[in-house]
């Protein structure tokens, strides 16, 4: 099945598209080194085609990971001045040392890279000649990093809702566990969103509790303070959509939400 000509053609087309297509930069606000490690693990787990993932911590390149098929193939860490600190590869797991030594280096060095870090962003580059075997699985990586949570992509209707309600939504992100992943808005908008959420709810994990934001419900909170935008929450399975919204858009937003949920 894997060697069928149409599969080869499909793979080539996907590689070509992804290699030359535009990959938006993804970023994440951090509250602890563990947040950073989880972000890295999730990006590797979500990388199916061969890619070089370049992680910038607080604006400077600190980590490069070659990944394919949701597996980590190689890594290289940098100090803030851009000098290589550690590197390792997991391509040949039959070697005497196997994966244990480089994995230990990776899992020890990663939290140190994220010490006192505020943001991490991901830049994705194409990678050619990726090995088809070897590599550390995302699951194995999560265990080595002390993380057990599998990666989850946001429900498609979050994006559709944002697209439909473009004028009303100033910034949007989705919350998975305790990490915010931007969906719409500039970095500055997302910063403001993260700040507003932190002001509103110091323990962000409560927002993923369905006792706070019920499943299949939309909540919009408003203050009397004109400087604070209204904030919107919508829940779907383990994901929570959070958005800053313009004033006097409640009617439009709830109607769009009802229309979308009815069609879903």
């Amino acid at each position, binding site marked *: 099945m894997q060697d069928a000509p149409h599969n080869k053609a499909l793979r080539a087309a996907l590689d070509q598209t992804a290699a030359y297509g535009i990959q938006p930069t993804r970023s994440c606000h951090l509250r602890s080194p563990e947040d950073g490690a989880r972000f890295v693990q999730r990006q590797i787990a979500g990388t199916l085609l061969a890619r070089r993932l370049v992680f910038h911590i607080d604006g400077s390149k600190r980590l490069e990971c070659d990944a394919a098929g949701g597996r980590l193939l190689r890594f290289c860490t940098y100090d803030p001045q851009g000098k290589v600190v550690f590197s390792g590869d997991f391509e040949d797991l039959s070697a005497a040392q196997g994966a244990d030594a480089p994995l230990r280096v990776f899992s020890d060095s990663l939290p140190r890279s994220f010490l006192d870090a505020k943001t991490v962003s991901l830049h994705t580059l194409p990678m050619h000649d990726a090995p088809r075997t070897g590599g550390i699985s995302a699951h194995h990586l999560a265990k080595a990093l002390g993380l057990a949570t599998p990666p989850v992509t946001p429900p498609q209707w979050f994006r559709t809702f944002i697209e439909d309600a473009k004028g009303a939504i100033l910034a949007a992100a989705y919350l998975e566990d305790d990490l915010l992943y931007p969906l719409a808005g500039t970095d500055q908008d997302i910063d403001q969103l993260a700040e507003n959420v932190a002001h*509103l709810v110091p323990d962000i994990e409560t927002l993923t509790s369905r006792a706070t934001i019920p499943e299949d*419900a939309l*909540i919009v909170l*408003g*203050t009397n303070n004109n400087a604070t935008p209204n904030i919107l929450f919508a829940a779907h399975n383990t994901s929570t959509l959070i958005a800053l919204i313009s004033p006097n858009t*409640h009617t439009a937003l709830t*109607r769009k939400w*009802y229309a979308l949920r009815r069609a879903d």
Partner: protein
Amino acid sequence: MVVFADIAAKTVLAWDGALKWPQEHLDDLCALAAQVLAIGVGVDPAAEPQTAILARATGCFVFVRAAPGANEALCCVFAPYCDIDNTFAAGKALCSDLLGGDQRMKA
């Protein structure tokens, strides 16, 4: 349905609506208002929610705190697709009337 409630004591103070709801449904609505308006309370007083909307398949719930820091709130239940933006202004005006001494519901 419009209910004026003390959400701290979870007590219904007054209500009006097209249908007569059983007391336990009014109490549930009061508890729901307390739960939704409690998101963010006690962290930053300036960020404390004064209004909240909870849209669900069964209807659209609108909660308006009577005044900043007040325990009283107006809890309204509307059909989906209602005009919420206008509801807020009407709700705030109604709260002013109620807290100003006119205890008779005008909604």
